[in-house]
């Protein structure tokens, strides 16, 4: 369970740090804390910058949940690996190709994000559509990898190493597919909105962040599976 514990420890440390920042030396009943500006009429309030968009915060929370999920899969993998019947399975070359596709997909979305910030709608469209198509390619590639493996005798129930491989890649691909739904909506908006770049900026950004995140998760998972 050490992987998930490391993640949670970091998360909890972050939470506690954030809380300390909010609460240190604050006596809520007197409300005269250092971060508060007191106005002449007695209204006191914490001054801070414009808050983060809610969807952005929501994505952050959601990614924490997903990280917890994958950390648990990896923890279970690491524990199960210690048992005697574990026989590592080969990673087909196709997985390397898929990794490349996913990286490219992420690059496309980053491009779209940059373009959205710069206000270049045409590049946004190109990047986001290209990234989406590549992501679809990645999922198809993963499914092909399964077929390859099954055909060469590495079926899901043959060995726990195989079972973990199929399960984890499937869960990852499902998250990718979920991301594609969100991406699809953004694509629709990007192609519908001629002028309102600021309105789509957030959507593109969130997609890009999610894509980078799934790429990072995949690289970690793939690296983990390569080494075991």
């Amino acid at each position, binding site marked *: 369970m050490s992987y998930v514990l490391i993640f949670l420890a970091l998360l909890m440390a972050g939470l506690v740090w954030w809380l300390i920042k909010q*609460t240190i030396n604050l006596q809520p009943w007197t409300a005269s804390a250092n971060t508060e500006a007191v106005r002449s009429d*007695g209204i006191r309030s914490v001054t801070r910058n414009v*808050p983060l968009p809610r969807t952005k915060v929501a994505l952050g929370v959601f990614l924490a*949940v997903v990280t*917890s*999920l994958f950390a648990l899969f990896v923890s*279970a993998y690491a524990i199960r690996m210690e048992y005697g019947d574990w026989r590592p399975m080969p990673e087909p070359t196709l997985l390397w190709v898929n990794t490349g596709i996913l990286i490219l997909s992420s690059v496309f979305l980053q491009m779209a994000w940059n373009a959205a910030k710069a206000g270049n709608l045409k590049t946004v469209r190109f990047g986001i559509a290209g990234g989406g198509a590549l992501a679809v390619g990645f999922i198809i590639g993963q499914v092909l990898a399964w077929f390859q493996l099954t055909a060469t005798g590495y079926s899901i129930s043959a060995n726990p190493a195989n079972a973990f491989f199929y*399960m984890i890649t499937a869960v990852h691909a499902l998250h990718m597919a979920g991301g594609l739904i969100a991406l699809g909506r953004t694509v629709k908006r990007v192609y519908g909105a001629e002028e309102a770049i600021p309105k789509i900026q957030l959507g593109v950004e969130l997609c890009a962040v999610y894509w980078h995140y799934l790429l990072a998760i995949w690289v970690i998972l793939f690296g983990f599976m390569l080494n075991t």
Partner: protein
Amino acid sequence: MSDVTHDALDYVPPLEVEEEELYHAKTWLGKYVFCQDAKVIAIQYSLTAIGIGVVALVLSLLMRLQLGFPHEFSIIDPSNYLQFVTMHGMIMVIYLLTALFLGGFGNYLIPLMVGARDMVFPYVNMISYWVYLVAVLVLVASFFVPGGATGAGWTLYPPQAISPGTPGIDGGIILMLVSLALFIIGFTMGGLNYVVTVLQARTRGMSLMRMPLTIWGIFMATVLALLAFPALFVSAIMMLLDKLIGTSFFMPAMISLGEQTSFDGGSPILFQHLFWFFGHPEVYIVALPAFGIVSDVLSVHARKAIFGYRMMVWAIVAIGALSFIVWAHHMYVSGMNPYFGFFFATTTLIIAVPTAIKVYNWVLTLWRGNIKLTVPMIFAIGFIFTFINGGITGLFLGNVTIDLPLSDTYFVIAHFHMVMAVSPVLVVFAAIYHWYPKITGKFMDDTLGQWHFWLTFLGSYAIYLPMHYLGFEGIPRRYFAYGETDFMSASAADLNAAITIAAFVVAFGQLFFFWNLFISYFRGKEAGGNPWEATTLEWQTPHTPPRHGNFDDLPLVYRWAYDYSVPGVEQDYVPQNVSPAEAENLGKGGGEQPT
């Protein structure tokens, strides 16, 4: 609502809340069924949870009949018994308490108490409820599939959960796992809402440390749930694969009723680690909202600020964080490496410290208060009593050595029912009596409430206090019948019968509650907007029950949630949205509250 404007203030307000277009129902269906208003979703969650909870209550009564009077009734057989044990536990812990505290109270109270118009993602919030409802229906369906519901115990330990010799190893367990997965997906949708609403939708002036403890409790519980439920999700998926495809995640090489199986090398202990990695935080997912709510109820009815607010907040956070590193105290005798026992016993007993602090602070809130013994208040006080008892017995079980004789006995049953069933349920009742006037505009009947309290409180104490001692005697849990054993005293059977009678008394007591809930809606005394004279924002709404959108103008918060009996102010409470200038006049005739 587009006419809502803020005062023109010349400073950057905290968490500037933009007005967003509210969801407006266009049809009857959209207003009452597929509704996106958090308050309606809250009611839907609550009624569904209570409905399925009643089913679980009936199951427990049937089990008690068997245990108390094994020879008088043949209503259930051993299969039914195990199925009822399983379903009772699972329903009560997840489908009732988790759903009610977070989906029910969370939805109703978060937007109102932080001064928001609604949850931040109302549509996702609505979907959350419907997914939950489907999860409940799938769970109920498992009773009716061939083989019946699963009888693996609520912990669903493999291998027996999917091996012959246990009821419901086909449809039953599959539907159970699917239902759990659905619940988790639904909950995650709701949970994102609760967390982001607390973080981003607080009204101006509502800094974190001005939030009522109810919100703190629900917030932290939601964070725990979001991070812990994936563990259950992972174990559910892996067990489904073991069952359906024949993988060996959890299934070792084993014989099953004399037949060789095709499983090889899996680890049942791995499942237990995953399960309790979720299962222990789950205890606090139920307890933390209860802690928060009871703090507010005590404070309001004692007319006194909650004692040690900051300590209370930190205790909630500390308990939440620590709850992730105590899970294996459920597994001291599971056959895992026994050296883990040292670590987990230590962390488990450490978590007792912040918990004890919370108890002291509740009691110290009463101290030098001006205590009104209203119905919600007596429920809250009843909670303190049962929680002390249940917390103390936790120190027995958490201490690894004492767990040796006591684990898997009635002591465990008594402990977790006292701490996780009786205590939170008393808080649920306190909360319902407390907020019913806001939800409906009517008081609940006082006499019926008193009857309900005494039958529930004394009845459940009569059930669970003696049960600990059956556990000391060594009487194991999950036994359909005891038969003849030397070490079991003959009188233990009489005690078991007495416990069953007490259980029926408690169940009878709930009739007062349901009748009260129903009749008060029609005949209850009019309550007005702020009947308990409380400070928090939900009591300051312009309409009672609050309308869609909750407030006309979003309130401005000037103070924390516990300004009761403030020196220098005549009125013994100052609502959060009263400015210091206005506060001086409160209670002096002209100083009516601004709403």
